[in-house]
């Protein structure tokens, strides 16, 4: 055993018995700052003996005798603490309230009158427990709790900053999280997969790493480039540490952490874990790959036969020929046929567009042979040049003209309004007879289309010969008369689309992995001030310490980090997650700074309970549903929300849980509940999200809220394709997180803008109309029946006599829409008690 490995073994041993290892001098090259630290040993001790860094301790739940009967261990901890302050727990809430509370809490949805009826009449002694089980088994549980997780990990589906472009393939991570909650994936496994899912058959999970913002604006200025990279890594370091460990490691970017035992070297050692992670898309290994390959082969054969038939039927281009000989220009794909010609150069010159600077997504040149090949591809050595390129755009570049990839996202745009040319130079002359070009073969964009153009070829530079122009095409918008050719072309378009679909690798925005770049400590966090190299290593002061060699591969690093975090001996991991669950069930965490368990975070109100829950989690295979079950079946959770002057005088904040904390629904369950009650909620799960903003093709995305909504937008809000920094214009005002920074705990504001949105937005008016239609359909035209059903659906109860009289008068006088709009705005609709 070498000295180094001996030391490592010793460290592991020390770590495993839960003592803290002093970090000074352990990691090579660390600056000890003894001048500043020499005299403050006791502070260092204080840092290391902080409650959350100490090992978990299982305490026997105290025997509580006061007031409400304890249903499980949780209650014994809670009641004992209440007793200390001479407080009593509140009595159990009534069943109607419990059902509403549970369903919103676990599924984020309201209860139906039938569910209420069934639960109220269920006389079995374990009716409540049975209800809990059925709700935990519902797939909508995952949708509700994934949202909490996505808040904490700053997930959004756009890049942020000024371009803020959409990430169309980021949603698989969202579906992964929903699935993980639904299948009760062990939490330690959940951690590992999010850091190294590529190793563990869970590709989508690594969307976690790159769920944050990404600055797409690149520059030759090295300072900016380095700054952007260190910002990306900083996002990964601070998100990972705050999510899983409840540590603000990010604070040690520029200097040792002011409060916690995290040195600047620690920060860069964790940063090194991500040194091979880059933003971007990666193919996802999916089960259907082989199937799709077979389909693709079949489609290709079919297409080739069709192409031969078309080649016989389709007229050749005739420069200067009469208009209308050929089909009008299409936004997706256009074919130019000509008699075979030998060429080394092809030039496409645009003379007019329907608007703006012209855009081409791909220019293909086919050889005149039995099995035509596209020789335009850059991968074959063909070189592209142009009259000028659209400046500053990431998705529109000259290199996209012949990269073999279609769509607006991989296209070229000229730098001049209505004109421009692009030229391809083949590596050697070829016999060619066909050119295919398009604006956007994905069919999403119809602007920037070349309407007038000229295509020339040359064997030698400058000796141009025109082979096709737009002159002999029909005018734009002309419908082709039905003919054998038009049918062939339509069929071809269909097949081509199918082929694109099956050959497109399934990719997702889940990060790309590259050999790790070396990591240096940066003086004051300045990327231009590199100091000594830092090896990937764990934090020096927590859990089982490890250090990897400088040459460690990317995946090895992430896997090692994941294992270190998910180690049951890590004192923070289990505490942090059970506290998050507690917070969502009971309004506030036992530690009220859910992503900071460090010295500057809050103290736990019930430290023994927190540890007890954390150990329960670990002892039960890290299954989160076990903790949910314990919490929601406790008497603590089942308390009424009613006030109590004496208790309020002692603990107005209800931090000791002498009652259930009533609170307003968050934006997502609020929107879902409105749709649910109006009868329009579409409960289809998974897949690409819906958009609440108008489509927009500007190279920096412009977000214009939609004003009209259809069934597309009536899915649960977790399926909104969620842009960063752009909140929905109706529900965003309800403290919806914007994905800019992590949101471990949402604010709960009350503002006049919320009132205006719920009263006047087109979404709300439309849903009030649907709700009114539903009342009419299900309750008939009698106002008193409509009123009754309205109350049942919206509040889960019958109206009082006074309420019914007022509702009937309102419906009589002004119609049911006004009534329904008021129900949607009522505090009772928005609050769960």
């Amino acid at each position: 055993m070498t000295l180094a490995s001996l030391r490592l073994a010793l460290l592991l041993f020390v770590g495993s018995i839960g003592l803290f290892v002093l970090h000074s001098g352990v990691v090579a090259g660390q600056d000890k700052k003894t001048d500043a630290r020499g005299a403050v040993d006791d502070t260092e001790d204080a840092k290391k003996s902080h409650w959350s860094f100490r090992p978990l301790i299982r305490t026997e739940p105290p025997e509580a005798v006061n007031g409400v009967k304890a249903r499980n261990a949780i209650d014994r901890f809670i009641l004992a603490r209440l007793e200390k302050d001479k407080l009593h727990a509140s009595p159990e809430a009534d069943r109607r309230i419990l059902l509403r509370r549970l369903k919103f809490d676990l599924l984020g949805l309201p209860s139906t009158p039938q569910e209420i009826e069934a639960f109220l009449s269920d006389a079995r002694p374990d009716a409540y427990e049975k209800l809990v089980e059925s709700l935990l088994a519902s797939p909508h549980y995952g949708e509700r709790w994934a949202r909490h997780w996505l808040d904490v990990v700053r997930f959004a589906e756009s890049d942020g900053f000024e371009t803020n472009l959409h990430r169309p393939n980021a949603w698989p991570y969202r579906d992964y999280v929903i699935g993980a909650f639904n299948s009760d994936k062990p939490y330690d496994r959940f951690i590992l997969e999010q850091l190294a899912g590529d190793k563990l058959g869970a590709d989508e999970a690594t969307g976690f790493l790159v769920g944050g913002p990404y600055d797409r604006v690149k520059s030759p200025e090295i300072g900016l480039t380095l700054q952007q990279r260190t910002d990306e890594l900083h996002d990964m370091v601070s998100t990972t540490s705050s999510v899983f460990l409840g540590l603000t490691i990010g604070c040690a970017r520029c200097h040792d952490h002011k409060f916690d035992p995290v040195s600047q070297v620690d920060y860069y050692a964790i940063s090194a874990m991500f040194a091979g992670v880059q933003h971007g898309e990666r193919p996802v290994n999916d089960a259907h790959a082989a199937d799709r390959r077979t389909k693709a082969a079949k489609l290709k054969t079919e297409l080739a036969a069709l192409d031969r038939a078309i080649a016989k039927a389709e007229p050749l281009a005739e420069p200067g020929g009469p208009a209308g000989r050929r089909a009008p220009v299409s936004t997706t794909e256009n074919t130019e046929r000509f008699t075979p010609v030998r060429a080394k150069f092809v030039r496409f010159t645009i003379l007019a567009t329907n608007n703006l600077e012209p855009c081409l997504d791909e220019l293909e040149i086919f050889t005149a042979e039995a099995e035509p090949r596209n020789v335009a591809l850059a991968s074959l050595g063909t070189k592209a040049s142009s009259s000028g390129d659209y400046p500053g755009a990431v998705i529109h570049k000259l290199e996209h003209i012949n990269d073999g990839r279609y769509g607006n996202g991989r296209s070229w745009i000229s730098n001049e309004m209505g004109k421009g040319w692009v030229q391809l130079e083949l590596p050697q002359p070829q016999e060619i007879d066909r050119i295919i070009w398009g604006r956007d073969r994905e069919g999403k964009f119809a602007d920037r289309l070349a309407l007038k153009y000229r295509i020339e070829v040359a064997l030698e530079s400058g000796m141009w010969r025109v082979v096709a122009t737009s002159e002999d095409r029909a005018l734009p918008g002309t419908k082709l008369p039905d003919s054998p050719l038009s049918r062939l072309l339509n069929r071809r378009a269909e097949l081509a689309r199918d082929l694109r679909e099956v050959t497109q690798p399934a990719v997702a925005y889940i990060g790309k992995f590259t050999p790790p770049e070396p990591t240096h400590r940066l003086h004051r966090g300045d990327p231009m001030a590199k100091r000594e190299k830092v090896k990937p290593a764990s934090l020096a002061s927590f859990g089982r310490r490890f250090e990897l060699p400088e040459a460690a591969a990317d995946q090895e690093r992430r896997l090692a980090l994941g294992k270190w975090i998910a180690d049951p001996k890590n004192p923070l991991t289990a505490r942090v997650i059970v506290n998050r669950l507690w917070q969502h069930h009971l309004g506030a965490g036992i530690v009220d700074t859910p992503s900071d368990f460090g010295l500057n975070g809050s103290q736990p109100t019930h430290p023994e309970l927190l540890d007890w829950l954390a150990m329960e989690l670990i002892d039960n295979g890290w299954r989160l549903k076990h903790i949910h079950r314990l919490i929601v079946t406790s008497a603590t959770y089942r308390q009424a929300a009613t006030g109590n002057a004496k208790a309020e005088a002692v603990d107005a904040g209800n931090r000791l849980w002498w009652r259930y904390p009533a609170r307003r629904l968050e934006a997502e369950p609020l929107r879902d509940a409105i749709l649910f009650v109006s009868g329009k909620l579409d409960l289809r799960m998974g897949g690409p999200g819906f958009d609440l903003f108008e489509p927009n093709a500007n190279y920096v995305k412009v977000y214009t809220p939609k004003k009209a909504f259809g069934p597309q937008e009536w899915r649960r809000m977790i399926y909104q394709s969620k842009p960063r920094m752009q909140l929905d214009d109706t529900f965003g005002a309800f403290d919806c997180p914007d994905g800019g920074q992590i949101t471990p705990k949402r604010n709960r504001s009350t503002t006049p803008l919320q009132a205006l949105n719920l009263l006047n937005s087109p979404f709300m008016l439309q849903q009030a109309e649907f709700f009114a239609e539903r009342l009419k359909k299900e309750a008939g035209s009698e106002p008193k029946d409509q009123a009754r059903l309205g109350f049942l659906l919206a509040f889960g109860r019958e109206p009082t006599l006074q309420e019914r009289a007022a509702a009937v008068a309102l419906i009589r006088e002004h119609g049911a829409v006004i009534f329904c709009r008021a129900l949607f705005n009522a505090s009772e609709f928005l609050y769960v008690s």
Partner: protein
Amino acid sequence: MSRELSTFGSRLLDRRDFLNYSATGLGSLALATLLSEDKLLAGGAAPIRPTLRPEAPLAARPPHFAAKANRVLMIFCSGAVSHVDTFDYKPELVRRDGQAMPEAPITFQGEQGNLAQPRWRFRPRGRCGKMVSELLPHLAELADEMCFIHSMTARSNTHGPAENQMSTGFTLDGFPSAGAWVSYALGSECSDLPAFVAMPDPRGVPQVGPNNWGSGFLPAVFQGTAFSAQRPIPHLARPGAIGNDAERAGRDFLRLLNEQHLARHPGDTELSARIASYELAGRLQTAASAVADLSSEPAALLDRYGANDANRIKSGFARNCILARRLVERGVRFVQLFNGSYAMGEGVGNWDGHRTIVADYNRHGPILDQPCAALLRDLKDRGLLNETLVVWVTEFGRMPTFQRGAQGRDHNPHGFTVWLAGAGVKKGFSYGATDEFGHRAADDRCTVYDLHATILYLLGLQHERLSFYHNGIERRLTDVHGRVIEDILS
């Protein structure tokens, strides 16, 4: 020092827990309760968190000390205005026009061409004789009112992060904006309008859009409300399908429901706050429509602003300027007025003059100049400048060179100009300087943190102490930086 911090930290925790127990039970709003200037903690910079009344989170709150200004108008020119073509006169740049710049750096878009003198002539203006270019002739006339900072620097040389920094103090997305911080600290003197209004340019929102006026981790009530003369507050008006009587009857019914619900939950201030918010919404509907209605403004005044100009962007911006004055007049705490929008082609929608700066700026200059100057003059004539701080900013400056192969200037975060006017700042004064070409801040270098610290100071707020406790960190507008620029204070 570390030991003190640690003791301080632990006392802070005790104190905070105490407050949690005694707070009024209102979630996050209540947790943001005052951590007052405790003598025990007074050794360092103990945080000051304003007391928020849940039913009136925007009620006016006293500053930390006597304020010089009680509201702010921030005019934000998106796209990065060239300082060397506007307010920062560099004779050496004129002299060496066309020569190579010694040690020319690689900048945002790449290599430099030669030094390029301003394309608009500078001449002395006002009694102070400040050299200002002819690009902005109306604003130039007001040189005696302005207090220039020529040595400003930014932390990023790309628009998104730099715009973030100027508006929020941080280059990253998701931090509270200066306007949100000020509303959080001081509330508002106008109960019928939002405390913080952001007015996007007629051409569209600025480059990082709502992050400029976001509330980040502060409660949403402090978020800027975006509206302008072109776009009213979203969902302000009741839907056309709902008549007056129906609206009133529906609201009465809603009030009945909410009051009965409250009666079943006695003492729940969050529910009372909700009822109050519907009343506030009603007042906001009236007040916001009234403030945006410019028809009561005299024709001569409209003309002075250029509100009837044939250039629709200019007249649109002019209307926003008038609206800004009306908001300031009514006591809105923070108005952020944008000139220039998101990028819609280089230099098209904003001041990003990379390639054809003469053509670009001849388009943008007149849009800004007359309306903005009329606004400043109008504020002065009405005496509003005595209590309003006007701050004119942009995300960074531009290079003294033209870009290689182009007739425009690249980004330059190393030295640029911002100016202030009004309450608490010197008039006709210039502070700091860039080097001989206008490339880097050379004298009295300033940061955006310093600018924010100074704005807060003028509002009677200590930038090191105004804080919000978020996830274990006492967050500040100025992060861990910033110093008040005392030399510019009057």
